[in-house]
């Protein structure tokens, strides 16, 4: 998984969003050590202070933990990661329902459409 940045949003916010997905996705596994701020900055060519800011936000959310001498780690608390997955799923579904409501589709029809689309995947 790679970081891809949009033009029109602060980079630190995009970093937070994408790192959350990477944690849920096991790109960065629970309890795993994260690269240092400098290594992150070098590998994705982003300002080190911006990286730092994103990591602090993830730390405030309890998703990563700083160990003073050895760096930053993904939390090893499965509950936190699970609840992150749920809240990301919730946001995605919410957005989807908002968009689909504009199309005037009944619930039955919608469920049927999702089933059919899902089979193709």
């Amino acid at each position, binding site marked *: 998984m790679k970081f891809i*940045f949009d*033009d*029109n*949003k*602060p*980079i*630190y916010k995009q970093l937070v969003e994408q790192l959350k997905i990477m944690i849920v996705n096991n790109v960065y596994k629970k309890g795993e050590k994260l690269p240092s701020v*400098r290594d992150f*900055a*070098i590998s994705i*060519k*982003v*300002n*080190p*202070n*911006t990286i730092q800011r994103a990591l602090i936000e993830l730390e405030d959310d309890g998703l990563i933990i700083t160990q003073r001498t050895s760096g930053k780690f993904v939390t090893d608390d499965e509950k936190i990661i699970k609840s992150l997955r749920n809240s990301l799923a919730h946001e995605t579904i919410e957005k989807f329902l908002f968009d689909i409501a504009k199309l005037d589709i009944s619930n039955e029809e919608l469920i049927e459409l999702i089933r059919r689309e899902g089979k193709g995947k």
Partner: protein
Amino acid sequence: MSLVELKELSKSYGSKKALKNVDLNIEKGKIYGLLGPNGSGKTTIIKIINGLLQPTNGSILIKGKAPGIDSKKVISYLPERTYLNMNFKVTEIIELFSDFYEDFDSKKALKQLKKLNINPNDKLKTMSKGTKEKVQLVLVMSRKAELYILDEPIGGVDPASRDYILETILNNFNEGSSIIICTHLISDIEKILDDVIFINKGEIVLNSPAEDIRKTKKTTIDKLFREEFKC
């Protein structure tokens, strides 16, 4: 105390005003982009900070003092044009830098050159323009300076090499030190900037954190620049 402080600074070349009432602070631990079209005054500001030009009016302080021997120890400067002797081998230039600058780390320089596949026994004149630029950047970044000033560090290298240049910059600048990057190739560097300074016709027209621009204007620095300086 700011690393660099310009106050109501003006510079005229004869009757031509190159800088008009420039106020600017450079703080510790940040990467600045000094961005402006050709002839906007970028290089004049940089030369004044380096003590190579005297302002006509106003003041310039580096860590609270006028530019001089002390500020040359603080600042590592990559000029737009080279001043190196083309008959020298890279190893000879590294010796020269070691003699000249107390804070020059020759081991670090050799390591970086190796990373960029540059043979230190080659003479400068046998190298392409882009390779010469890489050598100079490595030399400048191998000092333990408090402020690095890079005038057009990526101008001569092909787009594929620009990532290496960014890597060299990010890899080598010291914790707590600052960088001023002067360029018009904005899209290549904008993600590594903390603060963006737009200069036009000798005046600073914008000085803002890069993330604030993305947030409020919902656009890239590059697009904002093109909009601002449309002919």
